[in-house]
């Protein structure tokens, strides 16, 4: 049994979600190979070769893979993946974009966002926004799976010494092209990898008021997230959304500020180790999942909290 893990990267560094995906592969068992498809991604390949438990790194370096366009990357993964028992990718926007295209090319059903490995062919995954957990068994020759990072503790980024092998295969479907991107710049930790997350909801009232959360986050070394209500209202950009259809986080500490606790928000954060809710409405559903609830006006509580931590 050999497992192919698709590395998540930006041609410069390996994204942390790759380490969680390798951890899921290790639970399945067998040799683990990592595919780095990109352009000028030599540093990524070197870093991938050091990941604990990785036996081999395949590097497909081609202009067609520079922006991870699924029309070009999926045929590559499907071609290479035929010889493997499993193909795994992180359930990031990239993994979700590419992997179903691979599964369809291989004529197999995909298993999305697994949170645990029961055996080499059986996995658990949340459905209905996490209100039910399905156990799914696959009899596909190649099992195509996306991995929810919060379900698996990451393997060590150092300690391995895998062989690096170049892959010549070039696929350029010629039907799509990259136009541009606007990436949020932040000195704070990445939302899905942060140990502490401070999130704001509709109760923040406007985007400017998020400065109170940024100040608290900087004191705690935390990332800042938001509820769908805050994003829809235009307070903050979409990449900050935590929830069923946004980012799934499970930090050591999650502080929900002015968030009522809609089902779809809880789906994105209820696996956090400790949850704190600060809301002036004591009936807010968020208090039903919070370890520590504080019924207070957030505009008084947050500056005080910032002073005391």
């Amino acid at each position, binding site marked *: 049994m050999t497992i192919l893990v698709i590395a998540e990267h930006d041609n410069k560094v390996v994204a942390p979600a790759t380490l969680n995906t390798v951890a899921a592969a290790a639970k399945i068992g067998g040799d683990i190979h990592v595919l780095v498809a990109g352009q000028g991604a030599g540093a990524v390949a070197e870093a991938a070769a050091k990941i604990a438990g990785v036996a081999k790194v395949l590097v497909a370096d081609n202009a067609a893979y520079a922006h991870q366009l699924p029309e070009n990357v999926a045929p590559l993964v499907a071609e290479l993946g035929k010889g493997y028992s499993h193909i795994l990718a992180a359930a990031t*926007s990239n993994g979700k974009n590419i992997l179903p295209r691979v599964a369809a090319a291989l*004529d197999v059903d995909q298993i999305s966002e697994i949170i645990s490995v029961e055996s080499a062919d059986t996995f658990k995954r949340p459905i209905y926004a996490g209100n039910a957990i399905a*156990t799914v068994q696959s009899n*596909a020759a190649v099992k195509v799976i996306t991995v929810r990072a919060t379900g698996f503790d990451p393997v060590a980024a150092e300690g391995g010494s895998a062989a690096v092998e170049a892959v010549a295969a070039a696929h350029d479907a010629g039907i*799509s092209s990259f136009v541009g991107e606007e*990436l949020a710049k932040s000195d704070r930790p990445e939302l899905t990898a942060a140990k502490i997350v401070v999130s704001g909801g509709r109760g923040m009232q406007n985007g400017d008021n998020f400065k109170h959360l940024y100040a608290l986050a900087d004191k705690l070394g935390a990332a800042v997230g938001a509820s769908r209500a805050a994003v829809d209202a235009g307070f903050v950009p*979409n990449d900050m959304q935590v929830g069923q259809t946004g980012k799934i986080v499970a930090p050591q500490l999650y502080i929900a500020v002015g968030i009522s606790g809609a089902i779809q928000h809880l789906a994105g954060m209820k696996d956090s180790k*400790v949850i704190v809710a600060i809301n002036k409405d004591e009936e807010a559903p968020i208090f039903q999942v919070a370890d520590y*609830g504080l019924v207070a006006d957030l505009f008084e509580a947050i500056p005080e909290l910032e002073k*005391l931590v």
Partner: protein
Amino acid sequence: MKVLVAVKRVVDYNVKVRVKADNSGVDLANVKMSMNPFCEIAVEEAVRLKEKGVATEIVVVSIGPTTAQEQLRTALALGADRAILVESAEDLTSLAVAKLLKAVVDKEQPQLVILGKQAIDSDNNQTGQMLAALSGYGQGTFASKVEISGDSVAVTREIDGGAQTVSLKLPAIVTTDLRLNEPRYASLPNIMKAKKKPLEVLTPDALGVSTASTNKTVKVEAPAARSAGIKVKSVAELVEKLKNEAKVI
């Protein structure tokens, strides 16, 4: 330009679902069913393209039980011109649905297919990408902006780090994210008119598509419940608990 929109009948997003006692699935008896919220956004986008004069005809398709005709009628009331139901009482996987949609695409030859990025029941997020693979079309998933110009479409996508724009040759597949648009409500006159719009019913057999699956759901359980904790009286008490009890700061 013809636009095909795929919609799914799912449990209404306000319903808190319960797992069946025999762990065979969730209990959907007597719960409110609606159009998947992301599919509503897909219908709205198609209607806006028609209002702009870009789309000439909107065909809406659903794969599901007889009752999915309700959701197709809703889409017709919102502005779709005609509907197709591929009727199946089975619980189909995303790949099976994508294969059925591919058969409809072959028949209808749309220039653009718009789908929701995921259904809020199975939470798979697969069908649009799979349809794109089977059709050999480009895909603009998680779209927050769709602009047609000539024989291509520019799609701005919500990605983990922010936003990305790709250009796809038509025909192409687009899947919608939350902020693509805000769907309208159907007016009463349009609901009445929708009853007279054509609705064709097909079967997987008639389309020559096998819906066999490589996945089997073994059981469905309720998630581990998280119990409510305590209410603290002050910020000082909160900080003390976080430092000394939870030890997370």
